[in-house]
């Protein structure tokens, strides 16, 4: 069923001297989807992108675009559109000539070229800037021109290499929506590289989380956030609290299991991989934990605790609490819920939010 994929990386390995930048990376990107490569700097996401653009030739493995092996095809023959972090506009050309460059290279006649460029400039609301030079317009405008230049000849694939990281925070959010809207409207396959998890979750159809040269997990933003498969993914995306424990009992009837963490019995949602006696990593998002007054009645996953430290953050309150004898846990609640430092409370860990990560070294 390889027909469904627009881009495929098959066992791609790329080394720079002793450094393995991509270690046996396999990734399939479906036609029309927006796939984000997410990871910290140096995780190999840019290397993978450059294998797609043709600026890197992998040491091992194959790269396929539209079911054609392009591993050794130079980038100018790959029919791609690309948006760069530093915009990379041609400084000696006007906005019009920048956007028209891919058409000029393809020897499109002048009248048609003009029509297409103006259409692209309308799409990014920059018609009146056609005669400006890149240095005369703002960073956000430059990046919109970069986007128009990448899309103007309707390439098979749009590649975006941290396109928003040189813009300020407010503009970044605006551009995020603008990019998503453009990509939806054109129905183009897009690969988006970023280290910003919020950007990745907001934009993507699917996210590939990368770490140390390999892909940790591929999934929809929901899957990545709710069901991280490794400690790295859980840690990198959103806030996470981890507690090392052991699976003590499994109950298939109500699809729960009990994980013992330093004598504390925490009920968690059952997954097929769990077996009793297994060492696992219990994890929960701090904002999924509920704090209740000490008077609240006991129950499943409700434990006595003491507030160690409280930081008021306006819309949220950030607590460091002590569970049982020696378990520290970070909890974030609505700003309206207020407990004082030293106060006795009850902590509720709702079962659907209690998760377990199997693979931890």
């Amino acid at each position, binding site marked *: 069923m390889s027909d469904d994929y627009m881009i495929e990386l098959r066992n791609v390995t790329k080394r720079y001297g002793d450094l393995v930048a991509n270690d046996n990376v396999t990734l399939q990107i479906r036609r029309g989807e927006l796939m984000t490569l997410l990871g910290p700097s140096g995780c190999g996401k840019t290397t993978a992108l450059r294998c797609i*653009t*043709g*600026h890197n030739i992998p040491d091992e493995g194959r790269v396929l675009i539209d079911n054609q092996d392009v591993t050794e095809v*130079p*980038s*100018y*023959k*790959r*029919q*791609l*559109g*690309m948006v*760069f*972090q*530093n*915009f*990379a*506009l*041609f*400084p*000696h050309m006007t906005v019009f000539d920048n956007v028209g*460059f*891919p058409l*000029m*290279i*393809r020897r499109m006649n002048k009248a048609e070229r003009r029509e297409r460029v103006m259409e692209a400039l309308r799409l990014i609301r920059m018609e009146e800037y056609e005669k400006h*030079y*890149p*240095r005369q*317009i*703002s*960073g956000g405008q*430059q990046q919109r021109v970069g986007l128009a*230049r*990448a899309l103007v*000849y309707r390439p098979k694939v749009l*590649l975006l290499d941290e396109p928003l990281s*040189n*813009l300020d925070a407010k503009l970044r959010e605006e551009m995020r929506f603008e990019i998503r809207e453009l990509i939806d409207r054109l129905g183009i396959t897009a690969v988006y590289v970023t280290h910003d998890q919020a950007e990745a979750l907001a934009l993507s159809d699917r996210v590939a989380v990368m770490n140390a040269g390999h892909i940790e997990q591929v999934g929809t933003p929901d899957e990545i956030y709710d069901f991280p498969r490794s400690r790295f993914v859980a840690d990198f995306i959103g806030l996470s609290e981890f507690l090392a424990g052991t699976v003590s009992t499994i109950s298939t009837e109500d699809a729960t299991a009990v994980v013992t963490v330093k004598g504390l019995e925490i009920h968690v949602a059952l997954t097929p991989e769990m077996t009793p006696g297994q060492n696992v990593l219990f994890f929960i998002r701090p904002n999924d934990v509920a704090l209740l007054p000490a008077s609240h009645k006991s129950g499943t996953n409700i434990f006595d605790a003491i507030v160690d430290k409280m930081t008021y953050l306006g819309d949220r309150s950030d607590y460091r609490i002590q569970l049982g004898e020696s378990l520290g846990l970070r909890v974030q609640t609505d700003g309206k819920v207020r407990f004082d430092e030293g106060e006795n409370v009850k902590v509720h860990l709702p079962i659907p939010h209690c998760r377990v990560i199997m693979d931890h070294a």
Partner: protein
Amino acid sequence: MTFIRQYLNAILRSRKLLVQTLLLCFALMIYTPFLMIALRSVGRGWFGRRWLPPELTLDWYRWAVEVTNIVEITKNTLLIAVLAVLISTAIAIPTGWALGRKNIPGKELLMSILLLPRMIPPIAFALGVAQIFYRTDLINTHIGVALAHVSVCAPYAILVLSATFEALDERVLEAAGVCGANPLRSFVHVVFPLILPGVLASMIFTFTTSYNEFTLTLMTYGKDTVTLPVRTYLAIGEGYWEVTSAMSILLVIPSIIVLFMIQRQVAPEKLVGGFKGV
């Protein structure tokens, strides 16, 4: 004296006036000798301690053109300068590319080796060049004198061009590739226009260097390759101060034209990439 005292007091009070005074002193320092030459070239009977020549004339210019065969000499000078520019640029483009764009170990050391000919006293360097040229029959040939000039012109050209090439943004070249431009078309439409101001600047610098070069020419010229600076020097020896001054002024004209070209062609904003927020 009161005027001077008032002026000094005014300087102490006003920073602007101080800056203007310093600039004026600087201008005087640079232009007074030139002004003297200019006056000398049009003055007759200007002896002793007079401030200005008593009588003005253009005779010395006529002499300079007629007596010293200035047309032939200008031709020599220009031909040698053009040769020196072409050879220097041909050397400097690949060298500058390598130094500016490739990761070469010991780049700084290489740069200083390149500049070494400029560190040796010119006369000593020229003496060495002359010895080689006598053995290789390059004395009194245009190409020989031009080659001697290249030894000082090429380092300049390499410096300017390596900086130009270094400023070329790799991402912009990659962008051209992704847009579908093959290496040749990338060069024609992107690389060439971006490096052109730098290449022009380098050519203009090498041209003026060769045009005004004296020491190396003096040691390598012959009767068929006399250049303007050398002829001017020889005229001093012949004792015609006025004619020499006229020649010096004539010598300046192409330099001024070239300077004008620099300002017109090499607009500073064309030299930099002009990216915001990078």
